[in-house]
């Protein structure tokens, strides 16, 4: 064996021996220095400064790859065991989750089709060689999904058709939609499954950034509509495949997207839900869309506690916006009592706050509330609530639940995957 071969073998051995890499920890309030010395591998011993809590909350839900094996036991939201007679009725039965399951290469996500009713895995689909799945969206029929894949330079598109009970219950076929040279930041299949809305940004600087919103035909792959805006205007998009909360509204005639603008020099984000009329002429993403909801700014509630009123969002078919909050701070006794994790609706017509769908009451250090799915009237929502008491809790699988009548009912069967990589 040559030296080069021994080096490659050692490299492979190191790769094989590695446990999953721990999640990224970034500062929030202040750029707190990560201790240079060796840290304990237990989350609990990391302490819980505001800085770490805030950013990990921001980052955690997008990190399916880097699960931490150790850590505190899961924190389950206070479950509703009585009250609503059928909290789980009328939610989609099937979901598609992107997860590293089975003998996955590190970092490679497979498309796992799950049956929430039985808890069974219906199918596991692998990305083709060199590809990696990273986004998924579903139609209203509970059978049609689109999965995005990235191969280092561009996003390609796959139709996942589900036929429960068939010999081959899930089929993946490449869509004729032209690849996009970016990872997408917004992804929404229309409820009828005929059109796919996608938002992405190209460019590497504020000067050359171009943000696109396009609607594609699922049958021909043609771009039916495209809107663009140039420059980022201190607006940052990206991250999860539907970070922008792209949603079809008003009988598929409109598309909502979240647009957070950083006030220059202040560090304060103003978040807007913008609505674009698909039937109206125009191609300017901002000039041809209107503000449906102007959400409260990021709020500093106390010196040590803060809340983001609409950290995640989806819009229901009737135009009602459902927001999930982010609560963080540096006091376990203070955070969740001061800024309770909440799911709140806003009127897309008047922009006014309508109601609190659910509010968590308990103690926590941080909490991120992700809107995963909503019914057409925002009366039934599938949500993901990640709570941490101390340190960082990544045990996500038992925190998906259905919100209805002010209650959070954990889904009875574990959902494989991460809140940002699941479509119902």
């Amino acid at each position: 064996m040559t030296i080069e071969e021994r080096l490659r073998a050692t490299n492979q051995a190191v790769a094989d021996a590695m446990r999953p890499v721990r999640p990224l920890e970034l500062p929030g309030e202040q750029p707190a220095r990560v201790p240079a010395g060796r840290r304990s591998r237990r989350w609990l011993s990391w302490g819980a400064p505001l800085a770490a809590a805030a950013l990990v909350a921001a980052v955690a839900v997008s990190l399916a790859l880097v699960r931490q094996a150790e850590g505190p036991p899961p924190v389950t939201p206070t479950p509703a065991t009585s009250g609503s007679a059928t909290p789980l009725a009328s939610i989609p039965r099937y979901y598609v989750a992107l997860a590293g399951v089975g003998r996955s290469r590190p970092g490679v996500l497979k498309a796992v089709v799950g049956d929430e009713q039985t808890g069974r895995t219906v199918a596991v689909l692998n990305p083709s060689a060199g590809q990696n799945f990273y986004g998924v969206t579903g139609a209203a029929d509970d059978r049609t999904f689109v999965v995005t894949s990235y191969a280092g330079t561009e996003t390609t598109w796959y139709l996942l058709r589900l036929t429960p009970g068939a010999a081959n219950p899930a089929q993946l076929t490449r869509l004729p939609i032209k690849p996009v040279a970016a990872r997408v930041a917004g992804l929404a299949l229309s409820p009828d499954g005929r059109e796919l809305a996608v938002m992405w940004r190209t460019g590497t600087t504020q000067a050359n950034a171009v943000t696109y919103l396009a609607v594609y035909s699922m049958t021909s792959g043609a771009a039916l509509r495209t809107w663009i805006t140039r420059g980022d205007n201190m607006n940052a998009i990206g991250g999860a495949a539907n970070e922008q909360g792209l949603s079809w509204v008003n009988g598929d005639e409109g598309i909502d997207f979240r647009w957070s603008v950083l006030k220059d020099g202040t560090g304060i984000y103003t978040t807007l839900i913008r609505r674009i009329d698909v039937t109206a002429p125009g191609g300017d993403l901002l000039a041809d869309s209107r503000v449906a909801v102007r959400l409260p700014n990021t709020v500093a509630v106390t010196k040590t506690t803060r809340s983001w009123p609409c950290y995640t969002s989806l819009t229901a078919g009737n135009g009602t916006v459902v927001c999930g909050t982010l609560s963080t701070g540096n006091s376990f006794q203070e955070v969740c009592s001061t800024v309770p994790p909440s799911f709140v609706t806003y009127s897309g017509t008047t922009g006014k706050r309508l109601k609190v769908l659910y509010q968590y009451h308990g103690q926590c250090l941080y909490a991120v509330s992700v809107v995963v799915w909503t019914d057409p009237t925002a009366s039934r929502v599938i949500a993901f609530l990640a709570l941490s008491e101390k340190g960082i809790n990544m045990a996500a699988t038992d925190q998906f639940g259905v919100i209805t009548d002010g209650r959070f009912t954990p889904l009875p069967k574990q959902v494989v995957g991460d809140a940002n990589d699941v479509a119902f």
Partner: protein
Amino acid sequence: MDSVKETSAPPAGAGSQVAALYQAHAAGLVRLAMLMLGGQSGQSAAEDVVQEAFLGLYRQWGKLSDQGRAVAYVRSSVLNGCRDVLRRQSRTVPAALLEPNVASPEAQVLLAEEHREVLAALRRLPGRQREAVVLRHCLGLPEAEVAVAMKVSRGTVKSAAHRGIAALAKILKEDQ
């Protein structure tokens, strides 16, 4: 009501873009750091280096002239971080102890003897040779990318990698 200075609020953009990069590249960079550190310190120390590098990327995100080169930036930061760790260790750990038989319990559990020998041999190379060999021959990066990561010319990469391989052969032969 007190106010909180919000200049470093967890952004929907920078944080998540850095997180996406982390998701895509963390494992490979941790492996790079483990190879560079010679397996002595185990994965946790390598993760510390990579976390530091991404923290630096996050802090500098708005100032990057070309965010498309973020991976090259963070890879270079990982190398710098490894240099710092090794520098600190060299000041505190006698060279005689830097042998495979005193590898951390974690490293001993993880790797077979033959691979620990290679890691130990890598550790004995001069820094520049080690970096060139790891990036070029372990990770298989093109010379141009290795040059960017090491902040040296391609010619330097070529010669350092060549000398490193020759030195490794000698060390491993001597150890047999």
